[in-house]
């Protein structure tokens, strides 16, 4: 139960952070990605803020034998650069550049009442489902 409350609280802080940062506004994200036009550097400061906290606190957290509410840390262990990583990141980049939405901000923007957000989130869930199906057929 404590883990569920913790996850809810973390999601909430994350969502409020995204909303305050302005990244829930695709026009601002595209304003950052448009390096050759009129440029809005805000997204770089969002990344900087997130990375300052995470990079400094990560070694302190990792020193603990286990997380406060769970049995073990579940961290990715792979370090190789494989084609799936490269192609996946590139496909994501095309989608991000077309709409200005990545997964977190799109979900946080759901209560804003724009029907375009529902369309994007529906398609994003369909894309994620399609990946699950594709994985199953390949095996």
């Amino acid at each position, binding site marked *: 139960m404590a883990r*569920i409350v913790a996850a809810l609280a973390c999601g909430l802080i994350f969502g409020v952070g995204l909303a305050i940062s302005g990244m829930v506004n695709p026009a601002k994200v595209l304003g950052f990605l448009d*390096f050759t*036009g009129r440029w809005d550097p805000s997204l770089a400061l969002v990344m900087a803020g997130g*990375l300052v906290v995470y990079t400094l606190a990560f070694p302190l957290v990792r020193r603990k034998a286990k997380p406060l509410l769970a049995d073990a840390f579940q961290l990715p262990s792979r370090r190789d650069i494989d084609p799936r990583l490269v192609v996946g990141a590139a496909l994501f980049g*095309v989608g991000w550049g*077309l709409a200005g939405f990545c997964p977190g901000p799109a979900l946080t923007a759901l209560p804003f009442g724009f029907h375009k957000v529902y369309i994007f989130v529906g398609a994003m869930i369909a894309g*994620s489902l399609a990946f*699950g199906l594709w994985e199953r057929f390949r095996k």
Partner: protein
Amino acid sequence: MEIVNFTPIPAFVGGLLIGLSSILLLGLNGRIAGVSGILGGLLPPADSDTTWRLAFILGLVLGGEFFVMWGGDLRAVLIEANTPTLIAAGLLVGFGTRLGSGCTSGHGICGIGRLSPRSIVATVIFVAVAAVTVFVVRHVIGG
């Protein structure tokens, strides 16, 4: 190049909250705060550990609701893309983030924050490809 619409303070404060949330999820539950992965684990074939995922996603959505309730300004929010573009973009984001094992949060914050080479490469690729996409849409096709 001309700098426009720069909002450094809300951007940095929002970023600090995102970092705080991500490190709390690691310190408390031992999990990476990667939105595409957390969402993907809820979809079939779902893994067994879905309740915390649902709680995190619910929190993300509630964060947007709280922002509106506290008087957050939505007047600037602008979604330029039309419906077919949004569908294509959503499919690409959904599929691509799963194939590439992460998005802006999982790779861009948590991955780079623990100096993962995979996440650094993925972040450089998706930012570069997104920038090229915007360039083509706005300055080549859009003229």
